[in-house]
């Protein structure tokens, strides 16, 4: 499990942790039963206040994405198929909103924008190439 945050971002650190864990759970990279690092361990690894980590964990637990049983490590809770599907769509939607705005501002037709997205979906992205393209 890799969580990377930018504590100097305007999005609060706890929010970044929540979003990344939700993404990793929705993508299946963190299957049910995966143990999470302790509050203190993650806080130390990220160089942030431990209360920030407990806030993030607490929220995910309240949402039913994490499960906490006394005396045991915090684990990823089992998810229903519908829950996972809903979460996947929510994540993608958040990623697409800025792209839709850019397409509108650039004056690109809907057909052209959708065609571009379809093309990107079938490409194997190579980070270095994309950066210079």
């Amino acid at each position, binding site marked *: 499990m890799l969580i990377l945050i930018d504590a100097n971002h305007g999005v609060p650190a706890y929010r970044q942790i929540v979003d990344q864990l939700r993404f990793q759970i929705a993508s299946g990279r963190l299957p049910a039963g995966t143990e999470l690092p302790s*509050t*203190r361990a993650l806080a130390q690894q990220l*160089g942030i206040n*431990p209360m920030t980590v407990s806030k993030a964990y*607490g929220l995910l637990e309240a949402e039913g994405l994490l499960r906490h049983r006394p005396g*045991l490590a915090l684990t990823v809770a089992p998810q229903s198929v519908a829950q996972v599907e809903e979460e996947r769509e929510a994540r993608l939607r958040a990623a697409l909103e800025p792209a839709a705005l850019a397409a509108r501002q650039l004056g690109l037709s809907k057909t052209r924008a959708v065609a571009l997205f379809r093309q990107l979906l079938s490409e194997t992205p190579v980070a270095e190439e994309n950066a210079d393209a």
Partner: protein
Amino acid sequence: MRDVTSRDTPMLTAESVLSFTHVHKSFKSTTALSDVSLEVPRGTIVGLVGRNGCGKTTLLHHVTGLMLPTSGTCTTFGVSTNALGAREHARMGVVHQHAKLLGWMRVEQLLQYIATFYESWDVSLSQQLTDRLQLSRDGKVAELSPGNVQKLSLVLALSHRPELLLLDEPLSDLDPTARQDVLAILLEYFSARECTIVISSHLLHDIEPMVNRIICLEQGRVTANADLDTLKESYAEWIVTTRGTPLPLSWSEPGIVRAQGDASQARLIVRGELATRESLRVSMASRYDIDIESRALNLERLFPVLTGDRTTPPERAHAIR
């Protein structure tokens, strides 16, 4: 893994470690603190921020009783600051902005000398800290660089394991690596015990990851006293772009605290909870022919907003700077 369960016993309790009630402080005709009321609960790391001369140091001096209020009351550990005794002082650790240490001693001598004032002095902690900060114990205090004076001040403030740490610009003379070392040490110290830290600094990027509360002063008044996350979530920067029709010359919508830009694009600072901002966004999108891109503001970018006027008439948006 076991300390996950510590979330069941949250570090934050209702007990206030320090408290100010309607505190005024004047020096002759100068007002240094004006009607300051605040509470800092145990288990908090407070970032005390504000422009030069806004009263940060004066406020910290009131916590230790080094200064007493002209009117109003200050208490630390529940004791009025004009009655603080050795017992309370032993529970505090202070790093002064310009530490005046006994220059003729060697570092080792000064550590041993200060240790005699505290029953709780932890020799192994002080050794660990000087090692980690790469501070030689042989040097003469007077010959230390400003950075090393700051490191030594921190070791002196921490080695008796205080419950309340008051740090006045503790990073200002340190290089970036040493600053990261000091911040890591403070976070470890905080994580290991129930303590409270108040840290004043202009180095907002450095303190942002560790603080969970911001107290902002402007001309001796508290202009913000809030949870850092809440603060970040209470403001947004909107980049407004027209889809054709020129943008209005001024923005009168409630919640817009700053505006700049021209007829094609504007940058607005909007205050309000997410739900409030969303409804403003919807109403503006229906009134104007615009796209709105919302961005979050970090502490550095919030700073000018927090230290500006507290009133929010929209006309101010254009009047300012």
